[in-house]
């Protein structure tokens, strides 16, 4: 909110004071926590066969989004707007106009759903010989819903959050697949730590139940096909199962939180990002090693929550990095929630903050041996995100002492 504030000399401590989760495992922190610890999964192998997706667990949308606003949104916006509302509830900010009107927002987003039936009909008509010069123009002018564009524009998730929840300080939307989520938290943290902002809503959403997205990732043979396997067991059949998820966090300066009596769930201590030159073998492992060094992680016992995709070669390169930290308990968010692309890093941070606030790391997601039990209460969790094609990032989430 306060760009004008003089740059502070000492970085301000940044707390996570709210978490909103609406995923394939359910809505809210309790439902997700219980599902994680009971080994529950929500995998659809049939609806998009041979592709596998993690479908969104249905919610009562009206609890967070007025009906007339829902009609203006496509699913990816409803998922995100819903999760954003949960985060504001969790932080005790819902309806607090004074704070919401100056709250900053950074959203990591892709684009919205295409109208598959319109696209298919136009392509069929063209194949049937409709190829006059104005054919495509005529069909688009008559078949596209006028407001569909607004449900597709990347920055309109933020726009919908502003409209539905009144988050009206500043609004920025970062794009660029997985690492957009890392950059969103990196910038939000830097702004608060540097005195340029007091409080921010940061996160993303993804609708994985979209054939137009399957097309994009199938171009690169990235989709997991035929049979679900945990991320660590996909080496011979690499790929990701798209997941539907909304994940938002409220980041807040410690003084701002204390002044309004808000309790911290955890502290966001550091977020770092880079872009490995992936044409060189080993570049991702090297980049992740360097990012780790920049975090000031204490020795074990600690935990790592990774958004590893299951795509190759990046997942094997990340495994090589994880091998350097074998004493850390690892959890893959991709196994449990699928790959929610721009939202995956926010999801990882949400799970880290949730684990710290509950004094336990959630249960391992498979029997690969990579995900081991953790008996102690985690005080430091490293969140890792290496994009399926580009971009690497890491964050350190810590208990507030």
């Amino acid at each position: 909110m306060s760009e004008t504030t003089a740059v502070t000399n000492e970085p301000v401590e940044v707390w996570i004071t709210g978490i909103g989760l609406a995923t394939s495992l359910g809505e809210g922190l309790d439902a997700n926590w219980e599902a994680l610890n009971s080994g529950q999964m929500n995998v659809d192998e049939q609806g998009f066969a041979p592709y596998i997706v993690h479908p969104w667990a249905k919610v009562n949308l009206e609890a967070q989004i007025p009906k007339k606003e829902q009609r203006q949104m496509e699913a990816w916006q409803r998922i995100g707007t819903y999760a954003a509302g949960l985060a504001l509830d969790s932080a005790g900010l819902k309806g607090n106009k004074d704070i919401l009107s100056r709250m900053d927002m950074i959203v990591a987003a892709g684009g919205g759903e295409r109208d598959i039936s319109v696209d298919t009909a136009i392509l069929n008509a063209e194949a049937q010989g409709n190829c006059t010069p104005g054919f495509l123009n005529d069909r688009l002018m008559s078949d596209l819903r006028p407001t569909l564009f607004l449900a597709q524009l990347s920055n309109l998730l933020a726009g919908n959050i502003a409209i539905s929840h009144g988050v009206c300080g500043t609004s920025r939307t970062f794009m660029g697949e997985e690492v957009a989520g890392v950059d969103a938290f990196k910038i939000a943290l830097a702004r608060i730590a540097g005195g340029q902002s007091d409080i921010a809503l940061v996160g993303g959403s993804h609708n994985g139940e979209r054939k137009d997205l399957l097309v994009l990732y199938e171009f690169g043979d990235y989709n997991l096909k035929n049979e679900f396997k945990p991320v660590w067991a996909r080496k011979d059949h690499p790929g990701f199962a798209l997941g539907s998820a909304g994940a938002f966090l409220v980041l807040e300066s410690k003084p701002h939180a204390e002044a309004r009596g808000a309790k911290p769930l955890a502290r966001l201590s550091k977020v770092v990002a880079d872009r490995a030159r992936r044409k060189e073998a080993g570049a991702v492992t090297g980049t992740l090693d360097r990012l780790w060094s920049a975090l000031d992680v204490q020795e074990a016992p600690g935990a790592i929550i990774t958004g590893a995709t299951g795509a190759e070669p990046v997942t094997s390169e990340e495994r090589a990095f994880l091998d350097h930290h074998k004493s850390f308990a690892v959890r893959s968010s991709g196994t449990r929630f699928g790959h929610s692309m721009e939202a995956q890093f926010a999801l990882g941070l949400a799970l880290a903050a949730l684990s710290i606030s509950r004094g336990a790391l959630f249960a391992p997601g498979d029997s690969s041996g990579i995900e081991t039990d953790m008996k102690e209460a985690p005080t430091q969790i490293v969140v890792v995100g290496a994009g399926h094609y580009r971009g690497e990032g890491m964050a350190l989430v810590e208990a507030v002492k």
Partner: protein
Amino acid sequence: MSARDKFGRPIVVVTGMGIVTSLGAGKSDNWKKLVAGESGIRTITRFPIDGLKTTMAGTVDFVPVAPFTSTGLSERLGHMAVEEAIAQAGIGSKGDFPGPLFLAVAPVEIEWPQRLELAHEVGGTQFTYDDLLKVCGGGKFVNYHHRFLFGSVADSLSDTFGTKGSPISLSTACASGATAIQLGVEAIRRGETDVALCAATEGSVNPEGLVRFSLLSALSTQNDPPQAASKPFSKNRDGFVMAEGAGALVLESYDAAVARGAKILGVVAGCGELTDSFHRTRSSPDGKPIIGCIRKALADAGMAPEQIDHINAHGTATPENDKMEYVGVSAVFGEHTGKIPVSSNKSMVGHTISAAGAVEAIISLLTLEHQLIPPTINYDIPDPAILFDVVGNKAREARVTTVMSNSFGFGGQNASLILTREPA
């Protein structure tokens, strides 16, 4: 001279600029045509215009991209603008720019020629979307994966120019270019970096891009003659004209620029940003978010309204935008409003959407350099409800020390920049 502003923050200066618009490539060509009041708007020849309500745009036709994609064109335009900006700044070495990249870029998606290619790959005359999906894999279309990732343009710029760290691709709709600059300013003020590359690019004139804005009734339909379509602040304005282009700025801390003997082209003295939650495409009727945005920019620059002596308006020429921009500006500037010459570059170059904030910041800095304000062309029937001192039809010589450049976009995005010639 102090190297810090009055809030104790590093002063952020501009040491390199690059620009491409429908008028041409480069600062010198663009400036010559802008002050001559030339229009870059023309009838579209890139694709058939049969059946369209709007048939003109500010396309950049002199940059060949084959096969054409909008994302491919925005990448090319981005390269051209960045190359010019870095060359002028004379910073780093070839392929080794010593700072981060903040890139404003349009949302990316697979385009119609590629969709048609898939349909032809399927063959036949009766197929489903699943049939399309079946032919996507196997490597034949692997380049389309890379092409249509949202991060692809930033990836390419980062590879070529060697920017540091994770490049950020962003969209705040029509305010995107201003947001890219704002992110660079904030990073330098935080002391994270001495230099940042802030770029913005737009290549979206394709059939669906045009139809989308057309269906929202946002575009001018005054197709003939195309050069007269964009009429900011005129009574008979009827919408904006889509356009392509790119702008790039090298931002540096004043200290770093002076230390390496760089020529300082101007100062980004202040940035303001405030979200409007009234409606997805319309401004709050009371103008409060625009008013708040402008006030935040003034506060951030530590300036009084009277210190602004030119406004490079958002001025899209939609009935709604121009009215609301006047409502907002006049509420902040009061009696001073009529004393500020106001102009909209969009009358000539059209609305470069994601790039507009950067393109217009560069034109604002050129205005400061030349002490000459480019005109708002097609200003023949002034809107009597908009009492700006519009620089109509002919460039005007003026003493300009401080420019405000406004950007307002769909989704309630408002951003204002304050640019000066010299550090305050």
